[in-house]
């Protein structure tokens, strides 16, 4: 019936003017640290990142050398996660594969993020090409992203690099949309107007005033899209369109393993689990970041 419109309802927390000033991101970090889910997600990611970097120290098996006498061995003390059809240690391959998978996510998100922020700022701040950029993005978004990635690979050709580009392109529209929306909201703020009133140059307004104030949604989106990209890259590899054997990319491992599903379940289960855990980690961290970076927080 009636809606409350009362600012006083929110408890007012004392602002001690004696304490040290925390920047916005300083406060967000403080808040994030209290979020158990996000910290758990972060721990998972840290684990995978460290293990893939330190792979040579954690395992004594070579990645690609074939030893037929060891083929399709079940998990044991010797081979923790078993071996594949060529006798290669699955644990070792997952460690090294993590490098490829994580790198694919990183590259795809970096490309998509850069292009997305650029297009989003052009559309949102300059408004000149707004209509055309957004219509293009709407068309891109109309395709399911995996289908689109497949189509792009079909054009560019099969392979790791092309898969990364394909994933990046399929992720761009979500960046453009978020960035454009945020820019539109921020550019109406009076501090942007006052910067213009001071005669501050456009590029400085964009880099100094707009981008830092829309960093929160971009960071959250990038984190979530990281997981999405890894998943998409793995899916492409699983379909045989991305990383090609003997590359130990996780999707490729599952792809190879599926032919031996009845004899060697470990060949698909463990790389699959790795994908799942990493994506889960990114999602948990992303959700936590979303809460911590909420502009309503004080």
């Amino acid at each position, binding site marked *: *019936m*009636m809606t409350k*419109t009362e*600012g*006083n*309802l929110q*408890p*007012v*927390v004392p602002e001690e003017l004696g304490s040290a000033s925390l920047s916005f991101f300083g406060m967000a970090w403080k808040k994030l640290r209290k979020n158990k889910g996000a910290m758990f997600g972060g721990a998972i990611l840290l684990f995978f990142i460290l293990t893939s970097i330190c792979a040579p120290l954690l395992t004594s098996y070579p990645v690609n050398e074939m030893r037929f006498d060891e083929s399709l061995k079940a998990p044991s003390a010797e081979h923790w996660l078993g071996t594949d059809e060529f006798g290669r240690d699955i644990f070792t391959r997952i460690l090294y594969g993590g490098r490829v998978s994580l790198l694919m996510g990183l590259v795809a998100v970096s490309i998509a993020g850069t292009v997305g922020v650029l297009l989003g700022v052009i559309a949102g701040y300059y408004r000149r090409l707004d209509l055309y950029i957004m219509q293009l993005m709407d068309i891109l978004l109309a395709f399911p992203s995996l289908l689109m990635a497949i189509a792009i690979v079909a054009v560019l050709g099969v392979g790791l690099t092309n898969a990364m580009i394909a994933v990046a392109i399929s992720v761009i529209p979500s960046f453009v949309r978020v960035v454009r929306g945020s820019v539109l909201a921020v550019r109406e703020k009076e501090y942007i107007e006052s910067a213009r009133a001071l005669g501050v140059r456009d590029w400085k307004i964009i880099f100094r005033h707009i981008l830092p104030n829309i960093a929160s949604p971009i960071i959250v989106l990038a984190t979530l899209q990281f997981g999405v990209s890894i998943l998409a890259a793995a899916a492409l590899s699983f379909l045989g369109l991305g990383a090609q054997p003997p590359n130990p990319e996780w999707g490729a491992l599952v792809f190879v393993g599926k032919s031996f599903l009845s004899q060697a379940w470990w060949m698909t289960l463990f790389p699959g689990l790795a994908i799942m855990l990493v994506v889960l980690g990114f999602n948990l961290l992303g959700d936590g970041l979303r809460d911590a970076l909420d502009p309503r927080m004080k």
Partner: protein
Amino acid sequence: MANTEEKELLKVENMYIHFKAENGGHIQAVKDLNLTIKEGETLAVVGESGCGKSVTSLSLMRLIPKNAGYTEGKILFEGKDLNKVSEREMRSIRGNTMSMIFQEPMTSLNPVHKIGKQIGEVIYLHSSLSQAEIKEKSIEMLKKVGIPRAEKIMDEYPHQLSGGMRQRVMIAMAMACTPKLLIADEPTTALDVTIQAQILELMNELKKDFHTAILLITHDLGVVAEMADRVMVMYYGQIVEQADVRTLLKKPKHPYTVGLLNSVPDMNDDSDKPLVPIVGNVPNLGVIQTGCPFYARCPQAFQKCHLENPPLFERGEQWVRCWLYENQEVIA
């Protein structure tokens, strides 16, 4: 002017409102508040942001969510303690014998429902009228609050109306069940002065017609002078002064009230002399301090003010929370 013969309608005794703070502690938004409203009277509660005036009004309607905070003390409305009645009983009071209008007429109406439906719902909840009668009554109420072409407005959505019209609709909804008490929380703050004049006139007319008591929450002393019979000034969750409107505006006692009145540019003064502002800023609730909360900003503060929070001294009909008035002789 309020008639002293009138019955007491609302009596609040020793009310405290606590809010949960982020750090797990509690913040006292309102401390030891006592107030009475007689039937047909207008009591204005004046104060600046964070003084606890709006929280008080929400608390009277029991609209503060349980997980956000709680209220202590007695709230006697027509003899019933609202702090003790069931939620069901409270619902039958809200919008019926006690109703409320808010500051922001843009967000107080539901944007997806037609005006007729929203006003009809209030009447439906608190009466046993038929659909046709409800519609008739709704149109009658809209006409009473001065809305032209009331029949047509019934089928329109809130966004099709101007701010002033929306506030009229809100008032029509609030008055639909002829409440005994209308709580108006900054009812004209979002409106232009010429529209404000319309709405204030309307509220005064309705008050006469329905003999409704009004609890008017505002920061605007001009609105107070226009509307109120009695005035309560709040600062930092406490009543600092209470008196009838004439005494308070013409012979204010508390240094805060004096400061507020001096801060407002006087329309009848043609000289260019600077204003006399209150120094410092409105303190945030929750900052623990001893002594009088106004101490730091008070031009007349002395040592005792720093050490001890003064109680309310009753000086006839005027209540003042200030050590200056501890002894009757000091009153200038």
